[in-house]
């Protein structure tokens, strides 16, 4: 059976049932969960977006953007500054997308020529540089003092539900994009260039344009997550908006779930964020230790990701996807 045809056969029945159950739960959640758990779920969705963003640039394109949190911060600050200038939340959030795209294009042009490790650490340096820039520019961004966003008059009960729904929509968009990549020619172009850039070039693929587009998409979703986060917490500062841990966590979630798959990052995000929340609640003093150990374990024992090891989700093809 060809790889193409296998995809069309679709997933196995258990996963369809499970997927439907999850979807129903997600839709009913705002009406069923307490505020605390709704916030936890929103956090999971947020990390889901970050992980999917990483999935696009890392899983499908093969460029390990460890510093992708730079887009999270850009989204947070663009929304914050937009609202400080008087724009309503919806508009400020929507404008983060063109900002993220412009950054991805400008920075992607030189950086996406680097390979492997070099690209990874260049993105980390980019993240730190942006953080420092915000601190030094000050002014309307609030610099090191931070920036307060307008508080919504609606009150927390309604607000948290709205935030949850917006985050859910963004996650749906990100996942739909990955799904489309998984099957469309653009996705094939990315995977080809991931495996052999020269091979892809001589077959008619404009690798530079493809890479930049992928990073622009990745950055846009990550920025949207950052924008919602900013409005949610109503106060942002450079060290938390540009926190490198955001992308590292996202990266580990993507790894855990399975990079280069459509739903892997979501599973990874759910698992790790739930785990982290419970640990934070019960073992505050040693939570870093446990998280650190978990990361070590995941990387050492399950580099292919959970999705690969769970039999009831049908995977395309047989041999393992080796992470390069």
């Amino acid at each position, binding site marked *: *059976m*060809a*790889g*193409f045809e296998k995809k069309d056969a679709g997933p196995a029945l258990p996963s369809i049932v499970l997927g439907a159950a999850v979807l129903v739960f997600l839709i009913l959640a705002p009406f069923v969960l307490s505020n605390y758990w709704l916030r936890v779920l929103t956090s999971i969705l947020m990390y889901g977006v970050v992980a999917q963003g990483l999935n696009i640039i890392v899983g499908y394109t093969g460029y390990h953007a460890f510093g992708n949190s730079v887009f999270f911060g850009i989204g947070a600050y663009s929304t914050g500054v937009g609202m400080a200038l008087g724009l309503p939340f919806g508009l400020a959030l929507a404008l983060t997308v063109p900002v993220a795209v412009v950054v991805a294009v400008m920075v992607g042009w030189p950086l996406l020529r680097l390979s492997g490790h070099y690209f990874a650490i260049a993105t980390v340096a980019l993240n730190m540089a942006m953080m420092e820039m915000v601190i030094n520019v000050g002014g309307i961004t609030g610099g090191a003092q931070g920036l307060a966003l307008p508080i919504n008059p609606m009150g927390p009960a309604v607000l948290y539900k709205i935030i949850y729904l917006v985050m859910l929509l963004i996650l749906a968009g990100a996942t739909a994009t990955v799904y489309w990549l998984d099957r469309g*020619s653009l996705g*094939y*172009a990315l*995977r*080809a260039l*991931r*495996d*052999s850039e*020269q*091979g*892809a*070039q*001589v*077959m*008619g*693929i*404009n*690798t*530079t344009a493809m890479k930049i587009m992928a990073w622009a998409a990745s950055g846009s979703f990550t920025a949207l997550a950052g924008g919602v986060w900013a409005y949610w917490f109503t106060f942002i500062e450079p060290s938390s908006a540009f926190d490198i841990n955001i992308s590292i966590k996202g990266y580990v979630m993507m790894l855990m779930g399975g990079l*280069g798959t459509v739903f892997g990052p979501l599973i990874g995000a759910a698992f790790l964020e739930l785990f982290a929340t419970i640990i934070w609640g019960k073992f505050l003093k040693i939570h870093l230790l446990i998280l650190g150990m978990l990361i070590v374990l995941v990387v050492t024992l399950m580099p292919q990701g959970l999705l690969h090891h769970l039999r009831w989700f049908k995977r395309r*093809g047989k*041999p393992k*996807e*080796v992470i390069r």
Partner: protein
Amino acid sequence: MTLLEGKAVSVSFGGVQALSAVDLSVLEGDVLGLIGPNGAGKTTLLNAISGLCPARSETLKFNGTEISRLKPHRRAKLGIARTFQVVKPFDRLTVVENVAVGAMFSGHKIPTRSRVIERARVALEQVGIASKADLFPRQLTLSERQQLELARALAMEPALLLLDEVMAGLNHAEIEKTMALIHHINKNLGITIVVVEHVMKAIMNVCNRIVVLHFGKKIAEGAPARIVESPEVIQAYLGKRFADRQRRDQAQRAAQR
């Protein structure tokens, strides 16, 4: 009609001159052999043509279009396909997906996904590895991977095909098969071919013209029979002693007539 024309093509890396002012002319329908000792610049010339390395030239035209400033993917879309000496398959795609990528992004617009798959399967059949369509490149033997490399290029339905040592590491039977395939591609599919090869038997039987490179310069060009007897070529491969002997033999035969 001249399909590919290059005048004074030069490539240098740092201080090393890999190609010096090479003139190349490939006519439609040719099977042009490109030979020369190791390091002569054969792969570099292919890279210069496909756009993978920066080259200076007076002109580099494909089908009348100046391509010296075009990026590799644009040249591919114009109809130039190539294989690599060290094969570069897409490891995480299946064999048929590998070949389909060629059909998807070549200059020919193929309207539907099913037609793309069809094109891919046809290419796999032509090359002889249709049975391995759903495997991954890692699971193929070396000669099968060479065939995959070739199928990918064929799926692009190119006008010009550049082959870089496709017979490296093959056994006798596999070489015969590949020779027949090259003949088929040229005569039945109408594709012009430039072959870089070390397997002399293949070059002699398959090419209608040969160009010889040595230290980045073109030292001889002509029909296979003439090239093999040329003292310059013999000197490049075997050294001055053998070349001198060849010159003496030729002079003797001329004197005898």
